[in-house]
């Protein structure tokens, strides 16, 4: 189903705005996707969010998805600077095109960043990637706990 935002069509793969129509000699898909394929980062078959890396198989399937909520998806990732495991919550394509949802995502991160408790996952980083991706990096804990966190995201 087309993703509408102020009557602009957006790519179902990456959320970037699309041209209204193709024409002979022009591309009819998503320019952002077509440029992204050419970047060296895709060679590793891993998906990078700044210095956080999510393992992806060669056919594009994410290998370690911790959970999926209404706002986005949470992955197990590696902080490539420190070599340590982290949890990465990435806003979904549908929400990323909605400025209100992006703002809620930011507020959630700000609120969670204020909390410090051994039983509560802590946010350490809020990041943005063009064209419309926002993500938060959470402290890593056991996957069992993350299932509960992801369920909670659904009700946020």
């Amino acid at each position, binding site marked *: 189903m*087309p*993703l509408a*935002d*102020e*009557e*602009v*069509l*957006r*790519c*179902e*793969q*990456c959320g*970037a*705005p*699309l*041209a*209204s*129509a*193709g*024409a*002979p*000699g*022009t*591309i*009819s*898909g*998503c*320019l*952002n*996707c*077509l*440029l*992204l*394929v*050419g*970047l*060296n980062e*895709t*060679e590793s078959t891993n998906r990078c969010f700044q210095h956080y890396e999510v393992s992806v198989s*060669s*056919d*594009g399937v994410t290998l370690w998805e911790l959970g999926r909520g209404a706002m986005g998806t949470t992955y197990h990732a590696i902080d490539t600077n420190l070599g340590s495991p982290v949890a990465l919550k990435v806003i979904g394509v549908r929400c990323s095109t909605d400025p209100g949802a992006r703002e809620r995502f930011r507020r959630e991160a700000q609120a969670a960043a204020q909390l410090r408790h051994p039983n509560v996952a802590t946010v350490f980083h809020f990041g943005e990637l*063009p*064209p*419309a991706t926002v993500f938060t990096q959470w402290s890593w804990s056991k996957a069992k706990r993350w299932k509960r966190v992801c369920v909670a995201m659904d009700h946020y």
Partner: protein
Amino acid sequence: MKGIPGTLQEGGATFATTHWSVVEACADDETADSALARLCQDYWPPLYTFARRRGNNSADAQDLVQGFFAYLLQSKAYAQTDRRKGKFRSFLLASFKNYMTDAWDKTRAIKRGGDHEFVLLDDEVEAAEALYRRVPPAMKLDDEQQYEHAWAAALAASALQRTQYEFDSSAKARLFHALKPFLTGGIGLPSHEEVARRLDISIDTLRSHLSRLRARYRELLREEVARTIGMAEDVDDELRHLRRILAAGHYC
């Protein structure tokens, strides 16, 4: 080993001699002229979009582009500039802007560039006009950013066309058209299962074909980018820059 169209493997010398780095390296001989002419032939649509953005109608934009290339080759203006010219994209836009302000009136009648004549075919002009109009309405780009957006589209279109040509010539046209949506993205994308059923192949086989398609497109895109940057430039940096232009338009 099967030859790859447009490369030395096919027996031609078209690809290696049409790099911007060739123009950089030998700015005043016939090889440089031919390399520049070929690059101009392949990458004139972004200049057309720039001329259109500056308020010219389609016919005037075509005249401007044709006149500019003729002027560029006849005057050998490229040989008089700094030998470390950087990217072809930047050189072309800077020269075109100068031409629009200084040389356009004087050379209005010139349409030929020595041995190299630029004839714009109707379908090419139609494609360039579509390129000018294809920037999504949500993106607010200035003239130069739109030029770079058009440049990125021209690079991707060229790589995609070469990929399609290779698949077509090895009797894999049906496979290419079935897998193309996964490469290009967009809307109304089919599922892997749906396409596998249509092609009567397993999911694993489909993913393997898709992986090869992505890898080949990637090689060709990087070759196209490499054609247009200087020897000291990096393909990844150029791709990242072009993606930033898309993002800049998105967040305005």
